[in-house]
Structure formats: structure tokens, C-alpha cells
């Protein structure tokens, strides 16, 4: 995952960002340092919860892993290109290495021969990670009710967002990605981690 430095989490830490009193202030020693308001730092400090900050950072820089397997991949490429342009949502950094990706977009027909390769790529993605099943084939096998096609990628890996269509329009993919953003925004990652930590060490 990306290395974010969480600078602001508790109100108490904010005082460390106050500028040191200037020498002019020391010399006169009649003007007290006011911690309440300072125009030099006002606007650079935001009070928030850690979860909210982390979710905000995660959802606005989703790096997709394009798992293009069939015609849906064409729409996926169109979505990334100039006309539809998912860089407007901070999702344009398509990573062909699973180790740098956040969200796997399974775009196309997953054959049984390909299924374990998709699973292996998914397993190589670091947590936290999300999965989008793009189109009918990735969601349910689509029109391929046959011996050769996996009947939905959710039989192998957990899917966060299903996008209907055959193939879906680029607008539908963007809608799906925005739904995923909403989902990420509602997560309680550190709260859950804290809960798990206390449960494990109880």
C-alpha cells in the first residue's frame, strides 16, 4: 500500500505544529503566544478521525489491476482513455503488477483454465484490496453456460461490486468504481483492527 504519513489525528498533536516564537517575541516578552488561532497555519490543519482520513486517501487513489480477459477489457481501456478518463477520480494508475494494485477489475469471461491464474494474481495483491466483477461473464458466467467457463468469479474471490452489461458501458464501470468509493468510505478499518487486536490479546 502507499506510504501515507498520518500527521493529524488527535487534537493534542496539533500544538506541535505551532511555530516557535520568533526572536522578536522573545525580546519583548510582553506578547503571549496564542495557540488558538494563527493565520500562518490556519488552513493547513484538519481535525478528523483516522478512519475517515485513511478512507479518504484510499478511495481517491484506487490503483486498478486490469484483469482484461475478453471484450469487457476493450470497454475498460476506453474507460481509462481520454473520452471517459477515470483519472478524474484518481483511478488512472493501472498497475500490471498485482503488488502495486488496490482493486482488481475482472473484465471478461473467466475460463476454468484462466481461473486459477486470476486467483493467483488476486492472492499477490496486498491488503486492503477490492474486486469488481465487470460484465455478465465475470459476474455469473454470462451467456457461457458451458463446460469451459467459470460461472462467476465470486466462486473464487470475494467481489465487492458487480457491474451488469455485456459489455458494460464505460459510464457503468465508472459508476461501479464510484460505488466502490462509497463502500470504502464507509469502512471502519482502524476501529476493526483495534477490536481484533483487543480480542486477540484479551
Amino acid at each position, binding site marked *: 500500500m502507499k506510504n501515507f504519513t498520518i500527521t493529524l489525528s488527535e487534537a493534542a498533536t496539533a500544538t506541535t505544529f505551532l511555530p516557535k516564537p520568533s526572536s522578536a517575541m522573545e525580546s519583548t516578552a510582553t506578547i503571549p503566544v496564542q495557540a488558538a488561532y494563527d493565520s500562518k497555519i490556519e488552513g493547513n490543519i484538519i481535525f478528523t478521525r483516522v478512519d475517515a482520513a485513511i478512507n479518504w486517501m484510499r478511495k481517491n487513489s484506487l490503483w486498478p489491476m486490469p484483469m482484461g480477459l475478453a471484450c469487457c477489457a476493450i470497454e475498460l481501456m476506453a474507460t481509462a482513455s481520454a473520452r471517459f478518463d477515470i483519472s478524474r477520480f484518481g483511478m488512472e494508475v493501472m498497475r500490471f503488477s498485482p503488488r502495486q494494485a488496490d482493486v482488481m477489475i475482472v473484465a471478461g469471461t473467466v475460463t*476454468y483454465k484462466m*481461473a*486459477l491464474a486470476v486467483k493467483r494474481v488476486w492472492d499477490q495483491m496486498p491488503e486492503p484490496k477490492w474486486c469488481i466483477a465487470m460484465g455478465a461473464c465475470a459476474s455469473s458466467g454470462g*451467456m457461457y*453456460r*458451458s*463446460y*469451459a467457463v467459470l460461472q462467476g468469479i465470486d466462486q473464487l474471490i470475494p467481489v465487492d461490486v458487480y457491474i451488469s452489461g455485456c459489455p458494460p458501458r464505460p459510464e457503468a464501470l465508472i459508476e461501479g468504481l464510484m460505488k466502490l468509493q462509497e463502500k470504502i468510505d464507509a469502512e471502519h478499518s482502524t476501529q476493526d483492527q483495534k477490536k481484533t487486536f483487543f480480542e486477540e490479546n484479551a
Partner: protein
Amino acid sequence: MSAVLEDDLPALRDALGAGILSEVEFRGENTLNLSLDALPKALAFCKDSLGYELLLDISSLDHFGDDPRFEVVYELASLDDTRHLRLKAKVSEDESVPTAIHLWKAADWHEREVWDMMGIPFSDHPNLKRILMWEGYPYFPLRKDFPLAGRPTDMPDVASTGVAPLEGGPFVTAPGMEGGAKREPRARHQE
């Protein structure tokens, strides 16, 4: 029929004799039904003497219930695209077809596909293994007695297959129907 092809057919008749079981011409396409014994000689004659430089395809049919059960189909063409010829030969379940790799390199993958999907073996093929399914898959999926929904298999760390829910299918299209919704693949019951 092109003028050149008119000369080819008598030459083939002379060379193969009783190996030609029947000849069919339909809409300008010429098909020779051969005995399996005559097939390698016919292919070599077409390539070397008649100048069919191109092997377009090898396909296969499953006449389930008949004997011989299978049939292989060779589509030949000349490079200038003036002549096309189709050779067919019936193969029973315990027979194998002599490979055509020494004539056309293209036969390699075509024969592997026929072996993979239909299970017709080719003798003397240097690398006869599955090309679409994985090594170890136990069925030949295009055979008539193999269900469309598939059969469950599992090879840990290699691949697994399941049974597809057909929900009253198979799903077929109706290309002539008016309106896109009616043309789409749907489960249509035979009436």
C-alpha cells in the same frame, strides 16, 4: 468449378482409385469422401503433385451412434486462392489418423485441437497433447455424449471445472427474429 480444379479431380481419381468412396459438389465446393487408408496418400498427392500448398483447417465430426463414429475433414487450398478442396474420411473409435505434419506444418495445432476436443488420436504426431484444455483433463468436450454443462473435475493447483446451471437451456439465438430482445440467447424449448 474452376478450370484447374476440373483437371485435379481426374488426377485424384487416377491416383486413388477405389480410395474415393464418393464425390460431392455443392455450390462450387468440392468434397471427396475417402477411406481412411487412402487419406495419407490423397493428402500427399494434393500437396506434392497438385499444388495445394495451404492447409486451411482440420475439423472433425462425431456421428454418435454410427460406426465408424468419427469423421475428420481437411480443408485444402492453393496459395493463389483459385482452388479449394475438402477431403473427408471416417474414423472409428479404435483407429488413429496418420499425421499430416510432414506435409503442412499447420497440421500440428489443428491435429492437437481435434485430439483435445474430440479425442481422435493422430499417429506419428511429435507432440500430441491438449492445446485448449489442460493436460490431465479427463474428457473430450465436443463429443456428443459429453453434456454441454460439463462434468466436475478437480486437479489441485492446476484447474477445476464445475457443472454450469443450464436453467432449462441450452441457450440458443434466433437470428431471424424481429427485435433485439427476441434475437438474444434464450432457453427455447423444443416444440
